[in-house]
């Protein structure tokens, strides 16, 4: 997995609430058997019209936001399906961090598995960050995972919380399976005990 330590880049505002995974990556693009190449279809239905031309008013189509690395979004981002294609598409586009007041559970967890940092901030802070993101290309936001801070283009600093285990994995770029494999003895032990207690399983 890619490490996440610190980024400084363009932030894009998407204040719409309840952005669901069907919006992030429509099912049409779930037919792939690969993880890569989904970035062009990120937010597909909002991004392109029926003739596949870009809609100029969609934020990521605007010249100032072509290189977005941080997405500041409305409440309950990533609700809906468990499709990991959503974080794959976000990452493939180049976005490494999403900030919102809340995230859907599975999407939140999927982000960490793909080197994306989802940050939960209180409403007042998200509003400030949305304002900052509106400034476009010249306003660069910094996200520092080690220090657990987001810094606006004006230098205003906001701390954030992150699960210590997830932070560690992101900072080091650790692969979950590899880590769990180190605990195989515990799993073997559990299985041995469970096969006596609940043999029907």
């Amino acid at each position, binding site marked *: 997995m890619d490490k996440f330590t610190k980024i400084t880049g363009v932030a894009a505002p998407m*204040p*719409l*609430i*309840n952005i*669901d995974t*069907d*919006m992030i990556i*429509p*099912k*049409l693009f*779930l*037919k*792939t*058997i*690969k*993880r890569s190449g989904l970035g062009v279809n990120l937010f597909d*239905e909002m991004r392109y019209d*029926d003739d596949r031309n870009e809609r100029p008013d969609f934020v990521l189509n605007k010249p100032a936001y072509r290189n977005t690395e941080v997405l500041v979004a*409305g*409440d*309950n981002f990533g*609700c*809906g*399906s*468990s*499709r*990991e294609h959503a*974080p794959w598409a976000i990452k493939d586009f180049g976005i490494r961090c999403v900030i919102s007041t*809340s*995230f*859907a*559970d*599975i999407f939140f*967890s*999927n982000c960490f*598995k*793909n080197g994306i940092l989802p940050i939960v901030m209180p409403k007042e802070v998200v509003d400030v960050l949305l304002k900052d993101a509106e400034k476009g290309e010249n306003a660069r936001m910094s996200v520092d995972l080690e220090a657990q801070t987001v810094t606006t283009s004006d230098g205003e600093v906001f701390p954030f919380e992150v*699960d*210590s*285990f997830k932070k560690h994995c992101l900072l080091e770029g650790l692969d*979950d*399976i590899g880590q*769990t*494999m180190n*605990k*195989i003895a*515990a*799993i073997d*032990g*559990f*299985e041995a005990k*469970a096969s006596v207690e*609940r*043999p*029907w*399983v």
Partner: protein
Amino acid sequence: MSPTTLYDKIWDAHVADETADGTCLLYIDRHLVHEVTSPQAFEGLRMAGRKVRSPDKTIAVPDHNVPTTPDRVNGIENEQSRIQVEALDKNARDFGIHYYPVDDIRQGIVHIVGPEQGWTLPGMTVVCGDSHTATHGAFGSLAHGIGTSEVEHVLATQTLIQKKSKNMKVEITGKLLPGVTAKDITLSVIGHTGTAGGTGYVIEYCGEAIRDLSMEGRMTVCNMAIEGGARAGLIAPDQKTFDYVMGRPHAPKGAQWEAALTWWKTLYSDDDAAWDQVITIKAEDIAPVVTWGTSPEDVLPITANVPAPSDFEGGKVEAVERALDYMDLTPGTPLTEVEIDTVFIGSCTNGRIEDLRAAAGILKGRKIKEGMRAMIVPGSGLVRAQAEEEGLAEIFLAAGFEWRLAGCSMCLAMNPDQLEPGERCAATSNRNFEGRQGRGGRTHLVSPIMAAAAAITGRLTDVREML
């Protein structure tokens, strides 16, 4: 011992390892797999030279992509869909997991097949790379959806890295009124909590109205726990659960059955257990409901009118403006005047035999409106066979419905069953997101009897007029 909830009990019985910060390895008893979210996971195993740790506990079935027309036996026309289903075929064989291929009568939607075959049992942990895994919670099993990286993790280790969620109790007191179903309960709860209200929680549904539901109805309720944002939905097992499970192909038998039953009977929340949140709804306050917008929380009784953005606050105002525009609805219009052109009865929410019986009860002796496109897609080949045996299929065909083969179908429209832009559908599925049933398609979520009623009149209809 301090009092605990059902969730606490199942959780405690499955922790294989715990670190100081509360991060656990949760042991997984059943892993269900379908073709859309698994190819990358199997590929990951191959690349790392890993095996499936417990092929015996891993069950695969193609459902999302499969066509539901009889010609599917000749192969899937859409190339990408075919490649995904073929990949599942190959992965199931290569890794030696249980498998129900497209031409097996037991094939169907993964969340219908699991319980039907007795894979899902009380007190288990069940996962699947699909958010509606919550369905299995109806058996008192802790069931949640996972992403593809986690699918690979479970395949390789039979565990999931998890932290414990909070406990929420949703109690539905009293009895449902006529024409009100499990679907109306679950939609009403989401209308109450909002789609993010359950975030961070596992919900246990309880109360007289829940106890009164059949297993099919309970699965409908738990199925949509995810639409309320919850990690899982649970219902404590009781005699109905045990009766449903007994004799199914993979349910325990003989002495093992007795041992299992003894444990299953301990699976309930203690009276004085502590809850992080409690919601109580009176069953008699629940009406047949319908969604008007593009989020499952956009739900109103069928007797209501389309709301206006000014009825809402905060970020919801803009979301409602957008939703009304997408749905092409005018505030103040009675919902019963909204005309529809398509009806879809099926999905893991409402594709079980009881749903089909209920729909047939309304459709018997009636005809769908002329020009209406209406389809019934049973949740599994076995549901389909049973409906044919009970004479339900004849009723559907006589009413003018198409009678399809099993699959997810128009619930998410990955197969050829899709809405055209601007088409409006009364659907028994679980999501009304923009484009969910086809780009530009408009979805109104309803119960099976409400869908049947709408097919007859050609508009959203209060089914109570037809009872």
